[in-house]
């Protein structure tokens, strides 16, 4: 057989990924055979944080990303809590968790309709039997469920505003607790907002059934039986998503690395009142860990395993360092060289397991494991689907994201039940020097902050965002980043409009705006020992 010509396609930008992502793909016989992902924005938040007030991260880091600002705020607060060795009252843990959860619930319909489902109305799929219905529901701005979904996505964060005054960009989580002291009417109002969200979108539009019925689904067989059970299920947005995704082949590509990471999140209100870095794994409700699909095995995760390679990133320094040990030396001229350096994102890896995918799929695969504490959240569905369907795909990755919504909704309800309104919300801490680490799971995956306070100011602040895990370039050993790997095997119908590349990238819900680095342009000198990415 003659060797097919390789065509190289540069796509700048791949939109609807939150920030600007550029992708280069090699295409052979209409299929992607190689891929490079490039982060093309550099702002320098870490240099801005250096030498600033220890609490500056509470104001600055949510503004690294207006999409998962509550997640950044959560990390910034817990990082200071561990550095200052604070006491955090029970109510404050619940109030932080609730803020984090409602931001994530907001993101589900917003990403689903606003960023993801639009592609199902692409002319590529006009021959699908579901196409007309897809256009009717999901066409941008005018689709019936697009409009409903995008508009109702603003409701959950009204609860965030009850706690923090506004979403996005509040700083209501502070070391020692929270700034607010909600009243009964805040709690009852929050309940009614949750109910509205459930009664007007989650149940009638997304599930086509009650939340309780959906929660009975524990396996792939259960899901298929649910789909066939009633027309309301098959015709719900979830039902149509599953049926059309299979019809247009989204269950066939986008697998990725098959290795997954999560920090776990939502510390239990009674188990993390004296927060420490070491005590976190056993204190969070949704457990963290690493899942290796190839050996089908789970293990725990620790921040000490984090490494960053820079061979293919625009930095001139040794690779393989832990974030606390890095000295950021960016190259002055950021020319794109696919064989050399081609991105501002570093290649994050686990010291033992190499590159790992972050995100809701990771969380759900890890939630299926039997590692961790008995009381922690366990859910077998997505792991069962992963095993039954032969691994990940665009379809499974996005399904996992939406599936988590039901769990988060219940946990939001629990927070509202658990508040003891007359108890403390804040215990004033004593500022001190030290090192801290705060982590959470943003809706799009593992997020954490490292802080070092010395002499009453920030000496070192570092962030590794979920998109750093997912969108990073090749590691020093050549292992591709998760999205680069996931693009391999993607069929491209039209070189001039490669919507399939969009499907893969958007299934990761990437957020390039978190990819921020430090460099002094005027002198070319290194200004920061830390960087956020």
């Amino acid at each position, binding site marked *: 057989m003659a060797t097919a010509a390789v065509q190289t*396609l*540069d796509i*700048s*930008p791949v*939109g609807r990924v*939150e*920030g*600007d992502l550029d992708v280069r793909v090699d295409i052979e016989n209409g299929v992607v055979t190689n891929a490079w992902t490039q982060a093309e924005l*550099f*702002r*320098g*938040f870490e240099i801005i944080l250096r030498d*600033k*007030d*220890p*609490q*500056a991260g*509470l*104001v*600055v880091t949510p503004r*690294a990303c*207006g999409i998962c600002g509550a997640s950044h705020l959560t990390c910034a607060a817990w990082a200071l809590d561990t550095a200052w060795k604070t006491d955090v009252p029970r109510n404050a843990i619940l109030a932080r968790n609730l803020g984090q959860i409602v931001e994530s619930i907001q993101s589900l319909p917003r990403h689903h309709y606003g*960023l993801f489902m639009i592609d199902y109305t692409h002319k590529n799929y006009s021959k699908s039997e579901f196409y007309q219905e897809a256009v009717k529901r999901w066409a*941008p*701005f*005018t689709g019936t469920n697009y*409009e409903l979904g*995008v508009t109702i*996505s*603003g409701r959950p964060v009204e609860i*965030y*505003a*009850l706690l*923090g*005054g*506004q*979403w*996005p*960009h509040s700083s*209501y989580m*502070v070391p020692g*607790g929270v*700034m607010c*002291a909600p009243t009964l009417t805040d709690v009852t*109002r929050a309940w009614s907002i949750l109910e509205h969200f459930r009664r007007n979108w989650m149940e009638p539009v997304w599930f086509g059934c009650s939340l309780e019925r959906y929660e009975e689904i524990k396996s792939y067989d259960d899901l298929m039986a649910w789909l066939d059970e009633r027309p309301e299920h098959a015709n719900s947005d979830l039902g149509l998503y599953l049926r059309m995704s299979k019809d247009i082949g989204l269950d066939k590509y986008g697998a990725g690395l098959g290795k997954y990471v999560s920090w776990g999140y939502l510390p239990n209100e009674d188990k993390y009142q004296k927060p420490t870095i070491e005590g976190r794994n056993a204190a969070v409700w949704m457990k963290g860990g690493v899942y290796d699909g190839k050996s089908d095995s789970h293990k725990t995760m620790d921040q000490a395993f984090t490494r960053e390679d820079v061979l293919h990133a625009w930095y001139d320094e040794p690779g393989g360092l832990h974030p606390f040990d890095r000295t950021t030396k960016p190259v002055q001229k950021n020319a794109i060289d696919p064989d050399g350096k081609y991105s501002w994102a570093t290649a994050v890896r686990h010291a033992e397991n190499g590159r790992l995918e972050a995100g809701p799929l990771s969380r759900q695969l890890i939630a299926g494991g039997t590692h961790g504490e008995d009381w922690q959240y366990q859910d077998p569905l997505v792991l069962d689907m992963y095993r039954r369907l032969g691994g990940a795909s665009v379809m499974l990755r996005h399904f996992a994201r939406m599936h988590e919504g039901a769990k988060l909704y219940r946990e939001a309800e629990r927070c509202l039940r658990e508040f003891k309104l007359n108890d403390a*919300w*804040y215990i004033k801490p004593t500022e001190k020097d030290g090192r801290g680490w705060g982590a959470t799971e943003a809706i799009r995956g593992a997020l954490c902050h490292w802080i070092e306070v010395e002499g*009453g*100011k920030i000496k070192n602040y570092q962030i590794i965002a979920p998109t750093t895990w997912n969108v990073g370039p090749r590691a020093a050993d050549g292992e591709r980043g998760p999205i680069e790997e996931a693009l391999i095997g993607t069929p491209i119908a039209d070189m*001039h409009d*490669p*919507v399939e*590349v969009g499907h893969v990238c958007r299934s990761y819900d990437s957020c390039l*705006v978190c990819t921020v680095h*430090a*460099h*002094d*342009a*005027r002198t*070319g000198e290194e200004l920061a020992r830390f960087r956020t990415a």
Partner: protein
Amino acid sequence: MANLLWLQGGACSGNTMSFLNAEEPSACDLVTDFGINVLWHPSLGLELGENLRRLLDAIVSGEMPLDIFVYEGTVVNAPNGTGEWNRFCGRPMKDWVADLAKVATFTVAVGDCATWGGIPATAPNPSESEGLQFLKREHGGFLGKDYKSKAGLPVINIPGCPAHPDWITQVVVAVATGRGGDLTLDEFQRPRTFFTSFTQTGCTRNMQFAYKVSATEFGQRKGCLFYDLGCRGPMTHSPCNRILWNRVSSKTRAGMPCLGCTEPEFPFFDLMPGTLFKTQTVMGVPKDMPAGVDKAGYIKLTAAAKAASPAWAEEDLFVV
């Protein structure tokens, strides 16, 4: 029908997220009820790669009219004025901004980054960021102080970190319905209708402010946040307590001090150690006074307030 293009430079997408919270009108209403034709938006646009490039080229050449150019994020000039650290669609974003601003009928900066430079322009401003027509308080910015869009207006600045969705949608609707000429702007080119009153206007803690009852630490159910916790509500121009956030609240109502994010200096004091969530004072008197109040006046006012303060003012007000 009005063509709208929205781009992001050195941005966090926070203004886009805020915009998507809009309700009257919602983002969708703008399209379906007000005839706003969204040519492209980074989070919402259909096109990618070369199809977007074609669209942008058509706008720049004048073939496709651009009625409203909305810009979110800073203009990144690094390294060395080249703008290469923020590339978009194959070239530095700043080059696109320069070209698009020339053909736009109205140019709108949303959020602090696009208006004054915001957080990325905080010292030492590693990305050499600036706003469209200001860098902090300094007039000029990327487009220069003489810039006017084709409608004859300078950049319309809608500051805030983020801007409130209603501030954005109301300006867009005004322009789309032919009332752009009614917009009056203050010295920082902010629409006066939103930015003449203060953040404190309508704050639920105004009585405690009047009686000088202080919230001394977070998580309390009483007190004004100005005296100890660094609240900038009395000297910040915004309608945050007139047009509530997410329909339900505001930072000061929830117990968070105002950070002054609609003013060019945000973040204040460059976030230097000791300046965050703490009122900066000299001999017990705040360095930054409520707008227009002098030191002697402040001392008289607060002494009288303390003397007149009723007993209830010291007790919890926002109770369960």
